């Protein structure tokens, strides 16, 4: 369990709160990156894509800061039990968030190329919806973290399957476009990587949700989630 009441050493509470405030700040920035990257693609907004690419640096810096603070907290306070699990969770979450940020940056990079090419079907709309879903999952995972909510985290793990399904649908769609007209191949390859990036974001959000379960209960969920559609791995 994680206990809410204060430590006798109030500086310990301040340290823990500070590091958790950093993770929330990082989470908020990453959410914004997902939304903006998807919007830049849907609206073919090169300027916004450039902003997303530049902002990734700040997320990387936050991750470094969180890891440094976590190392100091372990060295100076020797956290145990629930406190220890909070620190371990924060460290893993920051790594997950940093990766999600990287995927958003990569989406923006590909968007800069895609705006030079002929649009393919209405896949940008599907990608935007998929990105929106992942962003909501992330928001809920951060919420579950703040509320120490295991049930909510379990639900997020299941929602990742929907993202996987959307990815598989897009995969088939891109394949069709490429077979129809080889001139679509360049755009479809970039779009496919974007869809794959979002699908990977969903996996990192799932990992965050699992970390929350570990933080609260002390146990990592180990039952494998069933893979429903194996289109893309055949």
């Amino acid at each position: 369990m994680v206990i809410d009441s204060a430590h006798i050493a109030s500086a310990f509470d301040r340290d823990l709160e500070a590091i958790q405030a950093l993770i929330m700040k990082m989470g908020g920035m990453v959410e914004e990156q997902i939304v903006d990257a998807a919007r830049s693609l849907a609206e073919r907004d090169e300027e916004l894509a450039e902003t997303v690419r530049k902002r990734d640096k700040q997320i990387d810096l936050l991750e470094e800061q969180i890891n440094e603070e976590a190392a100091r907290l372990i060295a100076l306070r020797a956290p145990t039990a629930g406190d220890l699990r909070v620190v371990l969770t924060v460290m893993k979450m920051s790594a997950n968030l940093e990766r999600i940020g990287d995927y958003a940056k990569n989406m923006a990079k590909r968007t800069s190329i895609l705006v030079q090419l002929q649009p393919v079907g209405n896949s940008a709309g599907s990608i935007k919806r998929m990105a929106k879903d992942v962003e909501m999952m992330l928001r809920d995972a951060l919420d579950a973290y703040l509320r120490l909510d295991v049930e909510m985290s379990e639900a997020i793990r299941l929602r990742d399957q929907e993202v996987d399904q959307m990815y598989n649908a897009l995969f088939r769609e891109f394949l069709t476009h490429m077979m129809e007209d080889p001139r679509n191949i360049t755009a479809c390859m970039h779009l496919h990587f974007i869809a794959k990036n979002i699908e990977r974001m969903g996996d990192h959000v799932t990992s965050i949700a699992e970390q929350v379960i570990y933080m609260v209960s002390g146990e990592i969920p180990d039952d494998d989630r069933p893979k429903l559609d194996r289109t893309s791995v055949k």
Partner: protein
Amino acid sequence: MNDMRLTERAVQEEKKIAARGVQVFYGETHAIKDVDVDILDKTVTAFIGPSGCGKSTFLRCLNRMNDTIDVARIEGDIRIDGEDIYDPKVDPVQLRAKVGMVFQKPNPFPKSIYDNVAYGPRIHGLSRNKAELDEIVEKSLRRAAIWNEVKDRLDAPGTGLSGGQQQRLCIARAVATSPEVLLMDEPCSALDPIATAQVEELIDELRQRYSVVIVTHSMQQAARVSQRTAFFHLGNLVEYGETGTIFTNPEDPRTESYITGRIG
């Protein structure tokens, strides 16, 4: 899922001490409330808990040190290797040779280093001649990891050693009577960090031969040296389990609050 944890410290699951329904009263004060616990052989068991929680009181039940306190009354059943230690036929002096004790403050006798260690074996008649006694003294000092530091001055007074050396001398004195259980009541609280590390290393070695029970105020020390941890609170044994589990995922909120530094 995890059959074998890297950081889990393996122990033999062989019981040494079995306590059932132990109650201790100091006059009106109910100091220990219905404690059941099995302490394992060749294992370091740490008793932790806030001041006045009963951990030292319970430790002192294990070699009947509470007998020396007039107002203390003990109920329940404590067995070492199945033998009831509160049986009227048991001689407390013999019991204490079998269940050695090391105290908070190093308390060597105002005698030579040699005599400090030889005292127990002499009064218990454990040696037939001087050569045998010499051997016991050397073996005990070696087991307490202090032989190399004192072998050239066995006639020097024990009180002239440094604090950490004195404590190891007291451990040598405790092991000289070939005990099976070693009780340690905050053995490092008067020592500096280096001497503490030496005593902790020694405790780990002693575990090869003895069942070691240590009372400590330092939770980090409990985490470092023990394989089993028992948390006492207001005279109750709240939680008892594998040390790694107690320090990462304790079951009872009182344990969690105490080890994370929230309530006393």
